[in-house]
């Protein structure tokens, strides 16, 4: 990242920008004092803090347009920000630029019950959408861990997933249309409220583009009928390979669970000490399998899953007897990160995706590396879709341990790529994994990404230094630091 100090010409340019913005936006929408900008100096990747020149909170699309135009004119970098829950530094400020926050674009504009869509401003919280339509028997399916706080605009920028995405899809499968403001201040509409939009699927290109193409201001989301019922089965295994087989057989057997999660012994023990969800602390692995739909449909699936788990050697099976117990079973899994944070001064949360069939191989590889580096690891795994979160426990106060942890983390990502997976399943590339992009893609592919980025942003003003590495880039940081159990946004449930 460019850390040059601000020169006098740049200072003029910032002051020009500030004057332009104050002529269009109310005074309280343009923040320049360090004290008031402090909450914006990082996102969920709190090890990376940068103070921006300004934080701007527009209240309307017209104001967003004015901000974009002014930044283009003054060549000021823009870092878009939703709720700042990103775990990869996607919203880490640029020291010479502004943070453009959609926090004030927080209105639900229309709920179309007949067509089962909702039109919302990009600053609306993910969970707020489901809450607003619950009375209609509808909900918005993608449920990332931070959904009580994260914004739908951020969800689109990151193509957020969640526990239910094997069955219900990612953000890209649940959004119909997005309005985006370009650097030149134009409002473009990608997608439509119909199933066929003429031309290229720009909405699919925008989704997951981490702020590089424009500023998302309005989103039309699909709403689904709320499932009438859900049941959760916990299966206990004494061997990782057996659990891995069970996962593969459930999916190969034609069952698509609504939720399917795995935790290993270190994770189980940490969680049980913390929330007492009733997890067996001598288990090697547990699987949580949720099935939803109508009762008549759930029962045969439950029988089939139970049979498979038994045949694969499950040593215990527990079916949650009611909604309260269902919540208790899930509370363990949901509190895995803070639970691990309790037992270690620091931890790194990794995020990679692997083919399900490689799970045992990858976890054994991680265990070997853990011994080699002398650092314990707890693993939680979205068994439904192969998204793996190894949590490396370390102490930043021990000399050299941070660097060792980062090296270890990098080896885990290499392992994911080796088995045909990816370096990030849901947390994004952001700042954190820009270096590893060089391992996952070759020079020609990275050049193609850069050309596409340039087509939208010739001056490299939109979230510069993020997501797509420049030619010279080879940063090695690739993990989320957690110090003294102080997880950023500790109030959020984490998956």
């Amino acid at each position: 990242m460019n850390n040059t100090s601000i020169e006098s010409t740049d200072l003029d340019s910032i002051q020009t920008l500030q004057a332009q913005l104050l002529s269009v936006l109310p005074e309280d929408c343009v923040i320049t004092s360090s004290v008031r900008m402090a909450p914006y100096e990082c996102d969920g990747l709190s090890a990376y803090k940068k103070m921006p020149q300004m934080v701007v909170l527009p209240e309307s699309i017209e104001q967003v347009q004015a901000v974009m135009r002014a930044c283009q004119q003054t060549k000021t970098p823009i870092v878009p920000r939703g709720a700042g829950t990103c775990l990869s530094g996607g919203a880490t400020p640029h020291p010479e630029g502004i943070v453009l926050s959609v926090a004030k674009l927080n209105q639900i504009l229309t709920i179309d019950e007949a067509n089962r869509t909702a039109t919302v401003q990009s600053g609306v919280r993910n969970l707020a959408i489901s809450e607003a339509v619950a009375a209609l028997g509808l909900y918005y399916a993608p449920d990332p861990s931070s959904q009580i706080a994260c914004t739908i605009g951020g969800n689109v920028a990151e193509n957020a997933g969640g526990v239910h995405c094997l069955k219900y899809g990612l953000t890209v499968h649940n959004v119909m249309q997005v309005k985006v403001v370009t650097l030149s201040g134009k409002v473009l509409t990608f997608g439509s409220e119909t199933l066929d939009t003429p031309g290229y699927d720009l909405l699919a290109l925008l989704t997951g583009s981490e702020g590089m193409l424009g500023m998302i201001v309005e989103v039309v989301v699909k709403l689904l009928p709320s499932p009438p019922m859900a049941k959760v089965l916990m299966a206990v295994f004494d061997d990782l390979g057996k659990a891995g087989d069970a996962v593969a057989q459930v999916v190969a057997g034609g069952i698509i669970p609504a939720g399917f999660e795995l935790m290993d012994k270190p994770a189980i023990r940490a969680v049980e000490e913390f929330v007492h969800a009733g997890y067996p602390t001598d288990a090697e692995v547990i699987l949580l399998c949720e099935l939803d739909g109508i009762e008549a449909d759930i029962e045969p699936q439950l029988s089939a899953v139970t049979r498979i788990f038994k045949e694969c050697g499950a040593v215990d099976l527990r079916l949650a007897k009611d909604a309260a117990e269902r919540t208790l079973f899930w509370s363990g899994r949901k509190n895995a990160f803070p639970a691990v944070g309790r037992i270690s001064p620091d931890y790194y949360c990794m995020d990679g995706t692997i083919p399900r069939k490689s799970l045992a191989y990858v976890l054994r590889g991680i265990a070997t590396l853990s011994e080699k580096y002398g650092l314990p690891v707890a693993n939680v795994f979205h068994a439904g879709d192969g998204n793996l979160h190894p949590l490396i426990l370390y102490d930043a106060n021990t000399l050299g341990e941070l660097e060792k942890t980062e090296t270890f983390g990098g080896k885990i990502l290499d392992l994911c790529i080796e088995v045909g997976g990816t370096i990030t399943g849901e947390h994004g590339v952001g700042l954190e994994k820009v270096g590893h992009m060089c391992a996952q893609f070759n020079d020609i592919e990275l050049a193609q990404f850069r050309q596409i980025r340039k087509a939208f942003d010739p001056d490299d003003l939109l979230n510069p230094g993020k997501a797509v590495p420049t030619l010279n880039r080879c940063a090695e940081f690739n993990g989320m630091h957690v110090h003294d159990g102080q997880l950023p946004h500790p109030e959020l449930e984490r998956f």
Partner: protein
Amino acid sequence: MANIERVLQARVAAAYQNASPLTIQGGGSKFVAGQANEIIDLTAHCGIVDYSPSELVVVVRAGTSLQELQKELSKNDQILGFEPPYADKGATIGGVIATGFAGSARPYRGGVRDYILGAKIVNGKGEVLQFGGKVMKNVAGFDLFRPMAGAMGSLGVLLEVSMRLIPKPIVQAARQVACADAQKGIELMSSLGKNCLSLTAAYWYQGYCTLRFSGSEQAVAHDVESLGEFSAVSVSQFVQLDHRQHPFFETALPIVRCSVKPAQSHLNFPDDQLIDWGGGQRFVATDTPITMLQEQLHSLGGSAVPLDVNRNYSPLALMPTSLADVHKALRSAIDPKRILNPIYCGN
């Protein structure tokens, strides 16, 4: 099974050197008209590269016939959820993706692009690139593989595609009910879409609503029972519809495919109309100029295109200039000399 990737790459690279446009061809199952460019034929580049039923993923070369792929998937009781048509006419996977045509299940299961996990392409400069991969959750880099759906080859010659699969439904059942009023038909299909979780297809035509339910025996039985007095009909009606063999299509009039919000109230055209996709797709057999229909549909937030796919067709005229400019810029970033099916989003 054959891999002619090097040959294909060399041909595109040569075409780039000479700035000579190419017509990308698969099985020729869908096109009625073409351009007079040099043809690059993908059918020799075929075969299933990797198929993991337990991963619900298949990786397949673009020239593989849809029929062959469907046979393989069937052995493991898996299908392509979007039900692409024309397997019997020699459709290839490349063409399935490039045209983006999905069958009756579109509103209930998603479209072509919702099932693509990755793609290997040759771009307009003759470079081989790979995007996405074989896993569902993957947010590294621009997701260029999804926009390949419907791009008619203009964003790259498809070499290989990885696709997400779904389990084949255990049972399917179709029911029909008399519904003289098209508006009532639209409302019925909309309400069933909310209340019947196993609904996977619905259309209205000349006084009848026809519906399809797919899934487990229990799920289908539950939804069928909730209908009451509907008559049982064959599920093959939907296969017919997807292949444009339904009686509606036996007309000398041009057919226009209108895309609207599914609960859009009935469009009172005087002509014969088939309301498909639970209301979201409406076919009209009419000699009204399509530009008039396009204007009308545009004011409703929708669009209209001719049924017959044509290589001389470009949608840029249907959109605001600012959006057309983005299309051209994206295309230029991938195919700077406009050699890949040049007309689509070219000018």
